[in-house]
């Protein structure tokens, strides 16, 4: 960029301390602030949605009930009857990620799910939970899962390391999937937006051609709305699948 108006597409992921020195001391950046905003948004939605507690629900109450039943069915159908115990956890996970993804789509806001530290912490929490539940439900038989049933014993030296590796890679794949999707989406927004500014330097012709990147960004917004809910769903459903394996006898 000869003009010097360079745009750093990764600048949007930088963390800045909130409230100056206090935020620096408490390691409180805008990321936890947006987490709080997301949590408050979901809680407000549920609180105001369910406040009428009507037998015949209004729009907001129906929406809140649909959210509840959607996650409840997902948990119970995937995990089984024991899924009801994990339902609040799955609900928390799904809506924490969904609200984070969607709040990040607002202009000038921040997407905390675009930080690998956050997504990996959540994935590792899920991983720890599945290991703890597995050991509690199955005891030492849990380790028998690393040797697939009916496989030849001669293949054991090959199969067991593969199974262990695949088990250990779960939190990695779970966290990178969400992180990469969010980062990719926001980087693309920035790149196409920077094209608009670049084209603006070419006069009237550039102004006309700048409509293209803007239209692409509008389409990208629709795509990101889909990706946001899809990634939250994938994260939640994979957690359910891991928990089903954990509670299986």
């Amino acid at each position, binding site marked *: 960029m000869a003009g010097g108006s360079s745009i750093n597409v990764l600048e949007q992921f930088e*963390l800045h301390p909130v409230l100056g020195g206090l935020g620096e001391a408490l390691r409180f950046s805008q990321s936890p602030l947006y987490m709080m905003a997301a949590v408050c948004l979901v809680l407000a939605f549920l609180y105001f949605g*369910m406040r009428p507690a009507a037998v015949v629900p209004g729009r907001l109450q129906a929406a809140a009930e649909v959210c509840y039943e959607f996650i409840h069915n997902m948990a119970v159908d995937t995990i089984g009857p024991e899924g009801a115990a994990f339902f609040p956890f799955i*609900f928390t996970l799904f809506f924490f990620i969904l609200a984070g993804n969607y709040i990040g789509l607002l202009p000038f806001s921040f997407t905390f799910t675009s930080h690998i530290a956050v997504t990996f912490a959540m994935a590792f929490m899920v991983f720890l939970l599945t290991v703890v539940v597995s050991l509690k439900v199955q005891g030492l038989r849990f380790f028998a899962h690393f040797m697939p049933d009916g496989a030849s014993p001669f293949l054991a030296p090959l199969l067991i390391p593969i199974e262990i590796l695949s088990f250990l890679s779960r939190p990695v794949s779970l966290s990178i999937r969400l992180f990469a999707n969010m980062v990719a989406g926001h980087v693309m927004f920035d790149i196409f937006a920077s094209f608009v500014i670049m084209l603006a330097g070419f006069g009237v012709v550039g102004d006309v051609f700048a409509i293209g990147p803007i239209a692409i960004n509008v389409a990208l917004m629709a795509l990101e709305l889909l990706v946001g809910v899809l990634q939250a769903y994938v994260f939640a459903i994979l957690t359910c699948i891991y928990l089903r394996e954990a509670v299986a006898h």
Partner: protein
Amino acid sequence: MGVITKTVRAGLLATVCGVSLLAVSAPGAYATGMPQLDFANPLVTGQVMWGAIIFFIFYLVLSKAMLPGVARVLHDRSQRITGDLEVARSAKQDADKAVAELQQARKDAMAEAQAHLQKVLDEEHRAAEQQMQEINARLASEIADAEKNVAAEKARALSALKEIAADTTQALVQRLTGVAPDAQLVAQSVESASAHRSII
């Protein structure tokens, strides 16, 4: 599962590559590196601590207050619906029972009425027959009396006829002969004559 995992991994690899390519091609992007991977920054690791606290509070509020509230509303609704259905079902049962009772009562009443009618008809029939018999008997006795009377009258008339004939004969003989005939003889003659003629 294996295929899905492979596909997901391939997709992930492609995504990461794409992001890296975009990052490389973007002006001045790669110079600073990804802020997310700058783990020396205390703010990056601070997210994990704050995230854990916020997530835990979110979980507590949801599991203790919000979700049970939603569950209660849903439960109340399903309870109410099943209750209403139960009421409707029992009402229908009552109505069915009432209809059956009504039909049974009607059938019973019909049978009773039929029996009563038959009884009345039989009684009437019997009474009429008896009356008829009585009338017949009375008529028969009256006829018999009348016949007896007729026979008596006839006998009386016939006996009077002989006297009249004897008187007439006596008067005729006296007129013709001028002599009064013997009454005994006349009576004898009338008797024999009447026996010949056999009027009676």
